[in-house]
């Protein structure tokens, strides 16, 4: 059977990719806690995916990645996360040489892809600053959707904190001082950019691929492009890249 499944059990969302003869099909994103409750059968030594509840067949090989992949100990091929992202970028863009920036739910990573393989990587420090979680907190504080927040980049209000917790208090304070919400949203995007640049500075960026849910943020894409003097490539859909990479690795194991 020429079908392969890839599951990315991220810190915030679970994404499922199906590699089938007609191309890729995607399920989710599902809220992580909800996914564990609904689709994972607890079992000793990990858990087992309830394939039928997701409409998946029993036979195809399945590979899993992400923070929660140990929850699928039963029968899944386990893939290190960054390897899955590199494979996914390769499968979705056809690129073999690039710097990949993945901004996920609780951390940000930069991978150097050379000759289709990961040659080096850098990850952010311990806290979840400037990750998807930071954006979520900020959008809740501003009462703005993530999509709307991604539209603002002009005339940003300077935010000193990129901490997911302190940043929120600072934002609330600035709202109280009367700053416009659009400018504050632009400030949030600027703050994320400032935190990502030191990670990127270790690499000679000629081609930049942006992956993870934060890649939907148009303002951040624009700011990164402006700062680096290039147009970042965004695989479609950016948050399913690791799941697609898992399909490739499941296929490789299967063949």
């Amino acid at each position, binding site marked *: 059977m020429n079908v392969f499944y890839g599951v990315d059990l991220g810190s915030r969302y679970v994404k499922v990719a199906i590699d089938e003869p007609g191309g890729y099909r995607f399920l989710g994103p599902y809220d992580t806690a909800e996914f564990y409750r609904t689709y994972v059968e607890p079992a000793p030594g990990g858990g087992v995916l309830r394939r039928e509840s997701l409409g998946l067949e029993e036979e195809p090989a399945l590979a899993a990645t992400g*923070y929660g992949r140990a929850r699928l100990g039963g029968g899944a091929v386990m893939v290190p*996360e960054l390897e899955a992202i590199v494979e996914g970028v390769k499968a979705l863009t056809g690129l073999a040489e690039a710097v990949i920036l993945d901004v996920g739910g609780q951390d940000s990573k930069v991978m150097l892809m050379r000759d289709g393989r990961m*040659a*080096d990587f850098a*990850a952010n420090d*311990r806290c979840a600053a400037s990750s998807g979680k930071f954006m979520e907190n900020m959008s809740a504080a501003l009462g703005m959707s993530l999509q709307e927040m991604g539209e603002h980049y002009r005339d940003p209000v300077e935010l000193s904190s990129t901490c997911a917790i302190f940043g929120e208090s600072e934002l609330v304070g600035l709202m109280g001082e009367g700053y416009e919400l659009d400018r504050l949203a632009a400030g949030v995007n600027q703050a994320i950019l400032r935190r990502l640049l030191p990670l990127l500075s270790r690499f000679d960026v000629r081609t930049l691929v942006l992956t993870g849910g934060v890649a939907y943020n148009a303002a951040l894409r624009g700011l990164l492009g402006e700062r680096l003097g290039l147009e970042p490539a965004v695989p479609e859909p950016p948050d399913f890249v690791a799941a697609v990479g898992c399909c490739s690795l499941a296929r490789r194991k299967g063949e």
Partner: protein
Amino acid sequence: MGGVSKVFFRSWFGNVLRRYYRYVMSRIGITTTVPIEVIYAAGHVPVDLNNVFVSHPDHQELVEEAELAGFPRSFCAWIKGIYGTVKRTCDLAAVVAVTQGDCSNTQALMETLQSEGVEVIPFAYPYERDYELLSMQMDIFMRRLGVEREAADEAMRRLDRVRRKAHRIDKLTWDEGMVSGFENHLYLVSCSDMEGDPDSFEAKLDSFLAEVKTRAQEGAFRPAVDMVRLGYLGVPPIAPGLYDYLESLGARVIYNETQRQFSLPFGTRDMVEKYRLYSYPYSIFYRLEDIKREAKRRCLAGLVHYVQSFCFRQVEDIILRKSLEIPILTVELDHNVRLDARTRMRLENFVSMLRGRADG
């Protein structure tokens, strides 16, 4: 008794006991490697407070004790843990404070302890590794403990016999692949105080060396062949589980930079020179010479640089990365003894990347 009054009672009682023990017993706390020859020659027992803290079953409580006393949450967990350890260890006669060659946080810790009635003995490593200055420091240290140079030299000869056995364990780790990264860490890190008893520590090393031979013959140990060869840089980890996790990924730490330094792996019989060759308290550039030499000798595929949250050594990461051509993964931990998912993700990807390089 309420929480606060319990703390007060313990502190008061601790001080009374400490005054008593100062004249009767003589356990002396150390916060980093200092010339323990002098402490042993004086008839005292050195106690590495880091080791007591990290192996304490309630080490989280020790950190909390420091926070209750006012240490900030955003402060080095080792310092807080040592503070809690000193407060709980009532039989310490004094604590040696390294005022140069360690961090300014240690200095603040010592001042706090001093203000709470703990006797503090200062010791300074000169930044430029000047022989005369270090010799002078040793003289002051010996005078303070009432020790003659000859007695310290004799103690050194005794300790060096034990250290040579630790060096044998280190060689068995990298040259023959017969010792795990954690075992290497444990025996080398313990050289800082020889567990307060060189004789029983030596017996422990002897028995481990015998076990290494037996288990190799019985095939009961996975040799390092085919494993990714790693080096570990920085202060010893607050979460020693890191070693076993790396082994589960098929990688082995065969070079523990600082722990190896604690075993003073130098041939010299001159005590001052020995502590001048010891790299940890001196500049990062001197440490780099050792790291480069050992990375080459031990054919390391990658380095894990451990940095403690809120530690100035995080900045040294910049120089390490600039100066070394070998792949480096920086791992930062605060005071979680279990490895968190984010750290595991980084280690796993690092090992997988190094293996990919070796295959490719």
